[in-house]
Structures are given as structure tokens and as C-alpha cells.
């Protein structure tokens, strides 16, 4: 029984990886755009950002934010196929197979999550250009946060894509929900300098805690672990469970 559950999950997961490996454009799409973003914004705001009390420079400030953006982009790219796949494609045959719906979601989300994780790993190479002291503990915790965020955002993308009737609709949700979620996570600017209503929105955005956890993990060597980091971890895992449940709920819903 356990075997019967995991066999399709592993197969769906592997399919995501094989497809990705055969499509070079996706690798470039998810890394290239955030990289350009990072260099342009980082260099552009490098000096103007200093008055806010950030001593590191904007290129370094926005670096963890770009890591999160890569995770977000990879998650979107790997779930957008779900929209057509479901009605007129590959996913049809998965739906009529004796595969549990949870298994279906897990296979797809773990696949997309793995890709998001691997792409963000590539971007971690740029750490050598920044003045952030890295230890095994800080790197390990960073990887854990990246993995959790990869699963969270892929599950969120999946839940949205599953009920989207067209890719155009998915783009609208992406622009109006996913991108603002990223921008209001502290990736782009800190809550301290923002308007009060914006700071409030940032406080209720669950991604803020993932972003904060990621940032704190990177600086673990200098700032050390604290209760806030634990809090960020708990919120992030809870958000991952929530998005996964939303994805499973979408798939199990009976459609009229």
C-alpha cells in the first residue's frame, strides 16, 4: 500500500525534473530575469538606500529577495502547465488513473519545489561577491528555508493554476497576488521605512516571515539564532502546510 502511494509520486516528481532538463529556456527564464533585476536595482539604489539605516548597500539588501524571486518564478513556470494539462493534456490520464489526489499534488509540488530549490542554489554562488560571512550552520538553515519556500510557492501556484481557466487568468493572478506578495515580503524594501498601511500589509503577509527567516539565516553567523527566527520558521512551515492543503482541496473538489 505504501509502495502504491509513493510510486506515482516519485514518477511525477521525476517527470518534472526530466522536462526541465530538456528545456533550457526555463533555466534561463527563472534565473536570468531575477539576475538582471538584481544588478539593475542593486546598482541603481545602491547609494539612495543608505539613509534608511541599511549599512550593507542595496545590492546586498535585495540579494535574499532575489533568491525568493527565483523560487517564485520557478514555481510559477512549473505550475503554469497545469492549466492546459488538466483539460487537454497529460494531467487527464493522471486523473483517471488509480492515483490518490494527495499523491498527485505531492509529486507535482515536490517536483516544482526541487527545481525552485536547485535554481536558487545556483544563485547562491553570487554570495562570494557579497560581504556576508557564511558558516555551515547559516548555509544549512538558508537551504532549509529555500526548500520550504520552494514547496510553499509551488503549492500556491498549483492551487491557483488548477482552477484557472486560462493562462491569461493565471497571469492576472500572478501580477495582482504573487508579485505583490513578493514585493511586500521585505524582499524589496524594509517595513520600517514604509507607510503604516503598507507595513500592516507586510505584517499579515505570510511570505514576510519566509523572507525574514531567509535573511536571518544568511546572517546567522553575525546575528545568531533568536526567538524571532524560530517564529519565522514556524509561520513558514505552517504556510507550506496551508498551501499544500489548498492544492489538495482544489484537486479533490467535485466539479459541476
Amino acid at each position, binding site marked *: 500500500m505504501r509502495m502504491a502511494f509513493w510510486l506515482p509520486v516519485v*514518477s511525477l516528481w521525476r*517527470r518534472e525534473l526530466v*522536462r526541465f532538463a530538456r*528545456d533550457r529556456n526555463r533555466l534561463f527564464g527563472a534565473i536570468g530575469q531575477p539576475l538582471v533585476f538584481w544588478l539593475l536595482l542593486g546598482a541603481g539604489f545602491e547609494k539612495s538606500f543608505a539613509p534608511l539605516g541599511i549599512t550593507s548597500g542595496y545590492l546586498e539588501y535585495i540579494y535574499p529577495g532575489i533568491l525568493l524571486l527565483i523560487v517564485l518564478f520557478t514555481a510559477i513556470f512549473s505550475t503554469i502547465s497545469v492549466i492546459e494539462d488538466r483539460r487537454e493534456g497529460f*494531467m487527464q*490520464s493522471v486523473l*483517471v488513473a*488509480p*492515483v490518490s489526489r494527495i499523491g498527485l499534488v505531492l509529486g507535482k509540488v515536490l517536483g516544482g519545489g526541487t527545481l525552485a530549490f536547485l535554481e536558487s542554489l545556483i544563485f547562491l554562488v553570487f554570495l562570494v561577491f557579497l560581504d556576508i560571512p557564511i558558516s555551515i550552520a547559516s548555509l544549512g538553515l538558508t537551504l532549509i528555508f529555500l526548500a520550504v519556500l520552494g514547496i510553499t510557492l509551488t503549492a500556491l501556484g498549483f492551487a491557483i493554476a488548477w482552477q484557472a481557466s486560462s493562462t491569461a487568468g493565471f497571469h492576472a493572478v500572478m501580477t495582482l497576488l504573487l508579485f505583490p506578495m513578493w514585493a511586500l515580503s521585505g524582499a524589496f524594501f524594509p517595513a520600517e521605512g514604509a507607510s503604516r498601511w503598507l507595513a500592516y500589509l507586510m505584517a499579515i503577509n505570510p511570505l514576510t516571515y519566509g523572507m525574514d527567516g531567509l535573511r536571518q539565516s544568511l546572517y546567522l553567523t553575525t546575528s545568531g539564532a533568536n526567538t524571532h527566527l524560530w517564529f519565522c520558521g514556524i509561520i513558514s512551515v505552517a504556510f507550506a502546510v496551508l498551501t499544500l492543503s489548498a492544492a489538495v482541496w482544489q484537486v479533490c473538489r467535485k466539479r459541476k
Partner: protein
Amino acid sequence: MQVAIKVENVSHKFGDRVALDNITLQVMTGEMYGLLGPNGGGKTTLFRMLCTMLPPTQGTIHLLGKSTSTSAVRAHIGVVFQHPSLDARLTVSENLRHQGHLYGMKGRLLSQRIEEVLNMMSLTDRAKDRVEVLSGGLQRRVELCKSLLHHPEILVFDEPCTGLDPGARRRFWDDLDTLRQTYGTTLVLTTHFIEEAERCDRIGILDRGQLIAEGTPEALKRTVGCEVITLETRDSKSLQLQIEKILDRDVQILDGQVRIVCDDGQRLLAKLYPLLREEVQAMTLSVPTLEDVFVQRTGHGFKVEDQ
């Protein structure tokens, strides 16, 4: 013979629109059953119910005694969709291997099954090709391989020949004959092609969500009459009126042609020809088709709904 598929009082609504209206039908084990009807007739809705993707608003469907509302039934059916369900970026054998995993098969058993179905569909030499480089006809055969891997007792097809050229169609029907002989699989297919329906053991004709006729193609055609006269003309409406006056009965217009269903075609042709020589461009005498059955039962043409 045992009942393989039992559809009882099935109705379905999409909002206010009735897609299926109280359908009851049975398919016997080993039978090839065709659901014939114009687009919008309800056959795709019924197809989606048969493959467990859509629960009926009312009524029940049992496959091999198991309700389609239970997921256990999925292991016993194979499904071939109208739109390709293959991953174009994967090779033929990767697609099949993945499909096998979905049905809990792996290792030597899976390799044997893949070899078996590829061999049956003469695709062994294409196993390592990516699906995206295959022609539409070959892709359809890979779809068939995919649906056969787990040796399903029931195979359900949605418009299996749409988009295939005539050669690929012929090949597809030969493949169906092969798999019926090999496995004795029960087949259900939806189609809007009359010629395809003619090849089935029994058919059900669906129009606007209702099952308007059911039986073997021969028996259904016999209900219409023995012969059909088709008259081609520029003004079918006026010819229809003229003929109705001569024969003192109703005749129909279908696709711009006047059609008369009758039992003694030759005698009727001989009677009409001298009277209508001027107006008529061509007169044809033929046996009735399933389209005639459809027209007789619904009062409208088959292709009108197809637009």
C-alpha cells in the same frame, strides 16, 4: 454475456443547461458500443462520467459492478482522450513507464508490458523517440499503448479518429480489432462520424442530452425503411413542396437535398423522374444510413448541430 457497463437514469446539468437527460443504457462484456451524436449532444459529458472525471448530477454508473463514484474502479478502465495526453517532451517508452507507475506497475512486469503493447502496435522501433517528433497517427497509437498497459477490462475513447488522416484511421480500426481479439476488451467510443458508428456492435444515438435511439446499426437502419431517394436541386424548398403534393406525404430536406425514405425506391423513382426532370439535377437511390435514423427521430439534420 455479462453486463460490463450499466448507466441508470443519469442526468447532468451545467448551470441551467441540461447536458444529459435521464440516460439509461447497458454495454455487455466484449461489446463495442458507440455513442453517436452531433457536437453538443451530450456524448463527451457521458464519456467524462464513464472515466470517473465527472460525477452525474443524478443517477448511477456502474462499471463491472463498481460505482464510478469509487476510485477503485479506475484500475479496471483504460481511457483514450480526444486531446493527446502524452508528454511530448518525453520519449515513447518514458511516457509508457510513467503510465505504468501510475497503475502501480514497475520492474520486470512493467518492462514486459511495455514491450508487449509496443509490439502489438508495431511501435517497438520508435520506443526511444520523443513523442513531439511523431506524426498524429503514431501519437494516437502511443495513446492506445498507454491505455492498454494495465490490461483494462473496459476501454473508453473520446472521438478517437478526430484529426487523423484516412490511412491512420484505417490503421486505428485494425488496431481495435487486434486488441479485441487479443484481450476481449469491452470498448466504448464516442463519435460524430457515421462511418465509425457503423463499425460498432451496438450504438446509442444522443441528441440534446437524450438517448433517442439504441440498437445494432442494422436494426436501427431497418426501422427507417428499405431505401432512400436523394434529389439534388437548386431550390430544395419548392421541390419539397412539389414532391409532398405528388406523393401526399412529408419529405425532408437535409444538407440542401430532398430525401425520401421509402420501401419501393425503383418504382417511386420511375414515377417522379418524368415529373421532376426539369428541376432535379441528380437523383440517387441508396440504402438508409444512421444519419437517416437520426433525421427521422429528431426531425433535424445531423450536421446542422455540428456548426
